[in-house]
């Protein structure tokens, strides 16, 4: 039941903001859509047992704002490399630990790493995220764990 709500509520929101026509006909078609898609999603869950659900933490918007700031700063740094006459690129590959994160948090963490220019997640498993970066200090920053901590705090509810 909780599973269904977690899935259906975002989908319902998606339909409502997209639609913009709140007539009886379109709302009932929307309800029909939600029934069909939820049913298909339920079937996929029994097939792949991936057990992924959108845990929308109330802290998520705050995290996204912080991430946006990081992305902006990193973009400025990489852009300066792009435009400098002799780009000082010292690529490095190293592992940054994930600790005992849930799978979804690992994904958020790895994608945040990729989203920030200058760092890129290569592989993800329980040992950690293998990161490729334009300079070694970027990986050091990740290993220091600020982003990791913020992603961790998204889990706490």
């Amino acid at each position, binding site marked *: 039941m909780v599973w269904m709500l977690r899935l259906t509520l975002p989908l319902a929101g*998606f339909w409502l*903001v*997209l639609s*913009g026509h709140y007539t009886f006909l379109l709302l009932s078609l929307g309800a029909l859509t939600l029934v069909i898609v939820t049913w298909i999603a339920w079937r996929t869950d029994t097939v792949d047992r991936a057990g992924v659900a959108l845990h929308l933490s109330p802290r998520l918007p705050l995290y*996204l704002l912080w991430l*946006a700031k990081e*992305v*902006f700063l990193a*973009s400025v740094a*990489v*852009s300066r*490399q*792009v*435009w400098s006459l002799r*780009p000082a*690129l*010292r*690529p490095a*590959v190293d592992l940054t630990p994930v600790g005992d994160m849930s799978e979804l948090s690992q994904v958020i963490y*790895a*994608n*945040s790493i*990729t*989203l*920030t*220019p*200058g*760092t*890129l*997640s*290569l*592989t*993800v498993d329980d040992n950690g995220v*293998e990161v*490729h970066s*334009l300079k070694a200090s970027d990986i050091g920053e990740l290993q220091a764990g600020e982003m990791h901590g913020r992603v961790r705090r998204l889990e706490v509810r």
Partner: protein
Amino acid sequence: MSASLVAELVSGVLLAAGGLFVISGGVGLLRFPDFYTRIHAVGITDSAGAGLILLGLLFHTTSWDTAVRLVLILLFMVLTGPTATHALAQAARRDGVHVWREGERRR
């Protein structure tokens, strides 16, 4: 100053900054020495460039429908963009695409 003028100004600044990032990424895609470093360049256009341009458009509109779609596009790009690049990088890594180190010939 009226609110709409401020919105116009903010939108202009965001669009200009976004355009700058977008071009930077494109130039980086050509200038950087190997596949992995180029991904970082693409990262600038896809995250900062796209984000700023979409935000700029968001300040440019007064219609609710349009604003919703801009936000949705932004959300989907945040979701799919890094996933696609990560998948690419992981597949390239698995295929043994060489990681360029400083001082090597560009490829």
